C-alpha cells in the first residue's frame, strides 16, 4: 500500500498513456462481437429506481439477486406471488378469487405504469391494483430501521446504566449529535416553553435522514438501496413536518396567516390576496423540503454511477482504454463519494433546521 502511494505518479501517467494510445484501437475484438451493448442511461436509471427484485450483480451471465414478494389487492381479495413469475413469462395468469375467471398481471415496459404491476383486462386496458408489495426500497427501509432501532436502544440502555457518569463507547458517538440537534437546532429556533414538544420528532428525523443517506452510499448487499432518493419517502417526511406544524400551531400562527399584522386592509378585504399568498406559502414549504432532499441524494448517486459507467463505455471501444480509464474514474468516484458523505450530513441538517424553524414560527409567543 505504501509502495503504491510512492509510485502514484507513475500509475497515473501509465493509465493516461494507455487511454491515449489504446483508446481507439480494438485489442479484443473477438469478445466485443458477442457481448451486448452497454447502455449507460438504462443502467443508471435502474440503480436509482425502486424495483420488485433485488439484483446484486451479474457474474458471468448468471443473475445473482433475489426476487421479492408481490402483494396486490384486487376487489378486496389479496394475491401474493414472487416477482420471479415476471421473469419467466411476460405475464402472470391466475384465477380471480371473486368470479373464478382468468386474471392477468403484467409489468408493462412503457406507458403510464411503466415498471409497475398492472392488471390487464380482457380488452387490453390496464388497471393498477392496490399494491403493497415488498419492493427493494421497502426491504431496505426494514433493514435500516432495524439497525437504527438497535443503535438507539443500545444508547438509551447505556444512559440508564451509566446515569450521570461520563459517556462511553457508542453513547459518546451519538451524544454529540443528539446534543447538537437539541442545542444548535431546536433551542435556537423554538422558544423555551415549547421545545420539548417537538424535540423527539426533530432528533428522529435527523438521524433517519442522516443514517439512510449514509447507508445508500454503501454498495455492499443489505445497504445500497436509494431510499432517501425516493420521492415517496421524502414526501412522507415532509408531510409529517406539515401536519405537526399545522396541527400544533397556536392561534398566533393562524392569525398571522389569515390576518397578517402590518399589512394594509385593501390586500385582505375584497380580494384576500395576503391570505392566499400565505396559504400557498404554507403548502410550498414542505413540498420544497421533499424535493430538496430527493434531488440532492439522487443527483449524488447519478454522478457516482456516471463515473463508474464511463469505465464500461470506454471499455466497449477497447479493453486497454477501459483499464486506463478505470484509474481516473475510481479516483473521481471516491472524491465524489466523500463529497456525498458531506452532503448526507448537510441535507439531514437542513431538513431538521427548516422543520425546527417552521415549528418555531408556529409556536411563537405573543410579544408584549
Amino acid at each position: 500500500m505504501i509502495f503504491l502511494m510512492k509510485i502514484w505518479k507513475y500509475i497515473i501517467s501509465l493509465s493516461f498513456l494507455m487511454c491515449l494510445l489504446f483508446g481507439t484501437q480494438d485489442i479484443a475484438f473477438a469478445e466485443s462481437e458477442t457481448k451486448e451493448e452497454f447502455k449507460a442511461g438504462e443502467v443508471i436509471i435502474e440503480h436509482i429506481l425502486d424495483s420488485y427484485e433485488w439484483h446484486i450483480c451479474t457474474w458471468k451471465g448468471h443473475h445473482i439477486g433475489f426476487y421479492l414478494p408481490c402483494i396486490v389487492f384486487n376487489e378486496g381479495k389479496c394475491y401474493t406471488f414472487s416477482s420471479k413469475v415476471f421473469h419467466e413469462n411476460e405475464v402472470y395468469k391466475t384465477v380471480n378469487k371473486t368470479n373464478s375467471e382468468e386474471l392477468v398481471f403484467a409489468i408493462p415496459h412503457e406507458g403510464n405504469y411503466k415498471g409497475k404491476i398492472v392488471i390487464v383486462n380482457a380488452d387490453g386496458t390496464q388497471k393498477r391494483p392496490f399494491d403493497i408489495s415488498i419492493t427493494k426500497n421497502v426491504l431496505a427501509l426494514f433493514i435500516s430501521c432495524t439497525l437504527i432501532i438497535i443503535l438507539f436502544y443500545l444508547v438509551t440502555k447505556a444512559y440508564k446504566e451509566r446515569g450521570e457518569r461520563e459517556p462511553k463507547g457508542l453513547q459518546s458517538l451519538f451524544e454529540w449529535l443528539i446534543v447538537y440537534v437539541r442545542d444548535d437546532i431546536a433551542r435556537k429556533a423554538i422558544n423555551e416553553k415549547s421545545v420539548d414538544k417537538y424535540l423527539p420528532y426533530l432528533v428522529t428525523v435527523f438521524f433517519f435522514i442522516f443514517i439512510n443517506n449514509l447507508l445508500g452510499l454503501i454498495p455492499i448487499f443489505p445497504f445500497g438501496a436509494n431510499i432517501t432518493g425516493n420521492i415517496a419517502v421524502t414526501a412522507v417526511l415532509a408531510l409529517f413536518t406539515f401536519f405537526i406544524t399545522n396541527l400544533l400551531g397556536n392561534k398566533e400562527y393562524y392569525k398571522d396567516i389569515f390576518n397578517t399584522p402590518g399589512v394594509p386592509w385593501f390586500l385582505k378585504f375584497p380580494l384576500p390576496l395576503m391570505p392566499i399568498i400565505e396559504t400557498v406559502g404554507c403548502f410550498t414549504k414542505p413540498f420544497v423540503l421533499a424535493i430538496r432532499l430527493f434531488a440532492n441524494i439522487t443527483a449524488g448517486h447519478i454522478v457516482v454511477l456516471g463515473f463508474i459507467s464511463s469505465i464500461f463505455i470506454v471499455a466497449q471501444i477497447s479493453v486497454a482504454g477501459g483499464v486506463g480509464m478505470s484509474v481516473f474514474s475510481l479516483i473521481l468516484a471516491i472524491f465524489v463519494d466523500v463529497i456525498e458523505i458531506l452532503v448526507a450530513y448537510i441535507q439531514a441538517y437542513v431538513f431538521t433546521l427548516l422543520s425546527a424553524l417552521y415549528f418555531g414560527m408556529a409556536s411563537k409567543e405573543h410579544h408584549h
Partner: protein
Amino acid sequence: MLQEVAKAAVDMAPIAKLGAALAASIAVIGAAMGISKIGSSALESMARQPEAAGNIQTSMILAAAFVEGVSLFAVVVCLLVAVA
C-alpha cells in the same frame, strides 16, 4: 412544401432532450454564481472578524444548501424531460 415542414416538425423528441440538457447546464451556471457570491462574502467577513468565523461558516453552508436546492429543481425537471 408546408406538408414537408409539418411532417418534419412532428418528431421533437431528440430536440426535447437537447433542450433538457441545455437547461440543466444553465441551471448549473445560476447555482455556481449564487454559491460563489455566498462563499466570497463569507470569506470576506471571516477575515474582518475572525471571532465570528464559526457562526459565519454555519450560515454559509446553510445558504449554499438552499441555493443548491433551487438549482436541483431544474435538474429534476430536466431529468423528467430526458427520460420520460
